[in-house]
């Protein structure tokens, strides 16, 4: 290896590492430290050790808030999964050219800022929105439904924004599935349901897990969706954190929450890592180990 390349490598890796250290690691450590400091009304924090921030985390009112947030994220994942899985199966039935076009169309909305798209949903779900007007028009309802500012609206918005994150990993795991295996199962007498449950589902499980993580993780943090569609009642973990820093000004509590969220997400990523590692080794998820 020549000296110039070594030098290039040193600078390339060094720059990236110091960038990450400076703007990710150091701030994270600062947040961690903040969570152990004392709250101060005027200066935000006092440099004095305290466990007050972490105590608030265990507060029952907060626990229910956290549960709400987790519930909404899970529901979002469930809805995305129930749409994405059949969608991917149908997609696999199409010729390659059409698959690429449809996947492309799926990505197109991403070129618009998600905030703008959430505003659009606000219009859609509002009292005078398209859905209420449509239902009134066909005579199903007499007066407009309260769709907006509900848990339903938040889950609806999250599902809309995050659906592609579920479809892409599931579709990619299906693309890797050897279709000879389905022929073999058919040959051995398995009908369509048995083929789905015993072959397709277990072999695409890594894609399902990846998709769920890619939906649940961001879903808990997308505070603007809850702000715009859920009103003040239906907050996500991200909203609570944001509020501690900006409105309530309880920095230690906000910091503790941030750390909690990071820990939660890391744990899920670790689970995913374990799952894919196992599936790589066994060529699929092993049902006795999982």
């Amino acid at each position: 290896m020549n000296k110039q390349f070594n030098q290039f490598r040193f600078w390339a890796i060094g720059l990236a590492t110091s960038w990450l250290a400076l703007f990710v690691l150091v701030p994270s450590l600062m947040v961690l430290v903040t969570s152990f400091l004392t709250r101060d009304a005027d200066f935000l924090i006092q440099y004095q050790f305290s466990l007050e921030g972490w105590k608030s985390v265990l507060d029952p009112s907060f626990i229910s808030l956290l549960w709400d947030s987790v519930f909404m994220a899970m529901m979002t994942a469930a809805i995305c999964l129930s749409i994405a899985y059949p969608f991917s199966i149908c997609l696999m039935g199409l010729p390659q050219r059409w698959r690429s076009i449809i996947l492309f169309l799926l990505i197109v909305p991403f070129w618009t800022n998600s905030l703008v798209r959430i505003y659009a949903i606000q219009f859609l779900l509002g009292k005078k929105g398209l859905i209420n007007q449509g239902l009134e028009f066909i005579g199903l309802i007499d007066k407009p439904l309260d769709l907006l500012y509900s848990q339903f609206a938040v889950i609806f918005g999250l599902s809309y924004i995050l659906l592609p994150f579920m479809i892409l990993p599931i579709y990619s795991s299906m693309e890797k599935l050897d279709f000879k295996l389905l022929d073999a199962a058919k040959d051995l007498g398995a009908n369509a349901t048995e083929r789905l449950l015993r072959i397709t589902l277990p072999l695409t499980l890594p894609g399902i897990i990846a998709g769920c993580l890619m939906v649940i993780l961001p879903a808990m943090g997308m505070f603007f969706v809850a702000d715009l569609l859920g009103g003040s009642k239906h907050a996500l973990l991200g909203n609570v954190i944001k509020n501690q820093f900006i409105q309530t000004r309880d920095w230690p509590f906000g910091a503790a929450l941030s750390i909690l969220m990071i820990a939660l997400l890391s744990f899920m990523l670790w689970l995913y890592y374990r799952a894919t590692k196992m599936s790589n080794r066994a060529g699929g998820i092993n049902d006795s180990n999982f």
Partner: protein
Amino acid sequence: MTECQPLLQLYGVSKTFADNTVLDALDLTIYDGEFLTLLGPSGCGKTTVLRIIAGFEQQDQGQVLLDDKDISILKAEHRPVNTVFQSYALFPHMSVYDNIAFGLKMHKVAKEEINERVLEALRMVRLESFAQRKPHQLSGGQQQRVAIARAVVNRPRLLLLDESLSALDYKLRQEMQVELKRLQRQLNITFVYVTHDQEEALSMSDRIVVLNKGKVQQIGTPREIYETPVNLFVARFIGEINQFDGHVVRRIDDKHVEVTAEGADWVVQTDYPFAVDDKVHVLLRPEDVRLTKPELAENTVHIEGHIHECNYKGKTLDSYIRLSTGTNVIASEFFDEDDPDFDYRLGQKVALQWITGWEVVLPYEQTI
């Protein structure tokens, strides 16, 4: 083969994929208990025949009868037919045991019976100690045997094998050929084997069906196919063969005619009703060629040529001879260690002959 009960019959089966006719009004009868091989070059339609029998593909026209009943309407999962796939298609997330038990589970066989039959199948393919392994922990030959066990454990009427040995190396393939033959005899299940490897077809089959361009070229025992091919395609596809073009000079009796080819007049044996001046192909296997020194052949019919390449093959010596007429001939001779003159020098002149009756005479084919 003692039984001659037809098990599966194809009548006028045709299949077209996007303007490409893969099978063209194919008729075929498969007898109960036989080892039948579908042999042909890639794209001849042999795999399509298999997929139609298995039910993965629906024929455009024609009938598929199993025990005289049309099974065309049956879905693949309801046909008493199992397939051993080319790539084995073992379920990667299941153990060897679960792979083999899969078909029985699907058919709702009682648990104790499943266990019994799976263990029996494992014993049969000599993999008893591998039951709990995953497919990726097995060698190619072992995976092959699991694939066979997974199919035969269901006791199908018909076992379809799609180029099932082609992924194995030469030595293992030879072993598996013997193993397959043994299994077939032991189980008494009808095997339909698809291959493009003529050597494999010759060594395993009771009967061979030679396919080309979606049509049956010839059906017969390996010996019939090799020794009396009915057309140039079969002759050339199975083994190597030398071809001399000529025409009939006169008829000698109802089994023999005299043919002039490569500048000599040969008496050849044939059942075809050739008339004088009919153009013919005289075909001769390399191992049927006799090479001698020109001075020893002076008084008999022969063609002269010279050696332009020698290939030592271990068991045999393959010599490439260019005849004075420009035709190239291959001769394959066993070593005779007692003959000091056996080895040829390049460029050496030789006389080429054969024993009447060892040749195959076919009518001239326009397309060649």
